[in-house]
């Protein structure tokens, strides 16, 4: 069992990456020592009327400086609140949570869609095999240049303003990318597309899933997804995204 911590940590840097996308580094020795790509943190708001945690993926891990990067989009009141925090402010977090990606494969495609892109960055850094990166956006890109050191980066945009016009699968096809494994995080329709693509090509896929969470540690059963087989823990065809995921093999789950 990996260690999980609930504590107040210090924000050491804040950047606005795009119109509603923010990047933030936090510092904490314990959490950072335990953190792996694909895991996430639960962030807690200060406003007393917002009780539930905001799950945010780990975007980068800097073990040397005990620092960890989170990149998030303002999606509602909680992330809006967090976007006002500044350097040296403290924030209550729990983590690292979930299982993270399993580092495997010889030739990988890392697929990130929209706000599912951040967790792919630390994965790109840690995954030592041959790899290409495919990033899907609606229009404005972010974080894409930071992937360049780790592999060839392909981009798709819905409006075609950058890269392939269409979605990430269109980009994979257009660029005839090959792999024995796909790692993906993004909106459900994208994950569904990746699963189908992997299936078709007989390759493995690890998908990072999303659902509304309360406990973040597997106790409340809020965040389940449908599993193909009866799950060992639940004894029904449900898996807990926070605890058994967020990363699942595509063939374990129904999406």
């Amino acid at each position, binding site marked *: *069992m990996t260690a*999980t911590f*609930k504590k107040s940590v210090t924000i050491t840097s804040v950047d606005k990456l795009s119109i509603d996308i923010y990047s933030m580094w936090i510092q904490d020795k314990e959490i950072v020592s335990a953190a792996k790509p694909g895991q996430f943190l639960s962030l*807690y708001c200060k406003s*007393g*009327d*917002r*009780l*539930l*945690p905001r799950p945010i993926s780990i975007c980068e891990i800097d073990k040397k400086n005990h620092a960890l990067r989170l990149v998030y989009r303002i999606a509602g009141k909680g992330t809006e609140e967090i976007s006002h925090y500044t350097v040296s402010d403290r924030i209550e977090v*729990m983590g690292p949570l979930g299982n993270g990606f399993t580092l495997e494969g010889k030739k990988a495609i890392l697929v990130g869609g929209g706000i599912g892109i951040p967790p792919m960055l630390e994965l790109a850094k840690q995954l030592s095999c041959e790899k290409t990166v495919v990033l899907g956006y609606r229009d404005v890109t972010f974080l894409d240049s930071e992937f360049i050191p780790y592999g060839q980066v392909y981009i798709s945009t819905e409006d075609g303003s950058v890269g392939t016009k269409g979605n990430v699968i269109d980009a994979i096809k257009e660029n005839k990318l090959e792999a024995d494994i796909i790692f993906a995080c993004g909106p459900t329709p994208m994950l569904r597309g990746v699963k189908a693509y992997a299936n078709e090509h007989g390759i493995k896929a690890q998908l990072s899933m999303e*659902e*509304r*969470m*309360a*406990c*973040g*540690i*597997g*106790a*409340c*059963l*809020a*965040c*389940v*997804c449908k599993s193909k087989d009866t799950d060992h*823990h*639940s*004894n*029904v*065809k*449900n898996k807990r995204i926070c*605890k058994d995921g967020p990363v699942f093999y595509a063939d374990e789950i129904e999406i």
Partner: protein
Amino acid sequence: MNTKVNIAGVEWKNPITTASGTFGSGMEYSEFVDLSKLGAVTTKGVAAIPWAGNPTPRIAETSSGMLNAIGLQNPGVDVFLDRDLPFLKQFDTNIIVNVVGKTTEDYCKVVECLADSDVDMLEINISCPNVKEGGIAFGQSCTSVEAITKEIKKYAKQPIIMKLSPNVTDITEMARAAEAGGADALSLINTITGMKIDVHKRAFVLANKTGGLSGPAVKPVAVRMVYQVANAVNIPIIGMGGIMTGEDALEFLMAGATAVAVGTANFINPMATMDILKGIEDYMMKYRMEDIHELIGCVK
């Protein structure tokens, strides 16, 4: 300083338990809390057979509260006995199993299965607003509350705690009906039925449309109901609903609860049970109280 309480013949080392459904079977939270320090652990609802629960989204945040419509997903009583109970037995605490069913027979079956087990108390959930059959339907009329209590008492070897629904006109009627049916204790409140609409998607936030409201938002309603029930029956009460701090727990004790359960607070602070216990102890220290019974029902 004495924090021991006695609920229907079962001694608790302190008045803190966990609210069913918010603490699993204790496993996940045992990383944060020494379960032996709890008066009791109350488990997620357990049914005769595995239940898959409702589709997602199952929760939504509301102002100072949350809605849940988990739909009583649970692995069934067999897995509970084989896996969860042995886990819980490692700790020096009381084990309370929350029992759910779709029919009276379902409830009785679970109660029977647990009769000879190492479970200390049974909490009968006749108040879940998130399942189509059973649940709250049993808890909203006096006759059915009394009838199901009576029936369950026939099978039960452990003390029976009837868990009441706040979604009623007069909670004292339900409490009296449970007492008349032979309940050994009462717990309240379960969640209040609520709804949230996503105005941008123009859709319900919860797949189940409605869910149960819990958290600090409901505390004033819960304290009121505990107070009313404490003045209506002679069996002990486990109070819950929005307890986040020691002071919140004290409100319930002063209103007449003999013990309290911590629910939603666990999600915000996994150490909540311990912090609340410490809050009560600090209070007793500050006001030089020797025995927690000086607090129970002290506000009239």
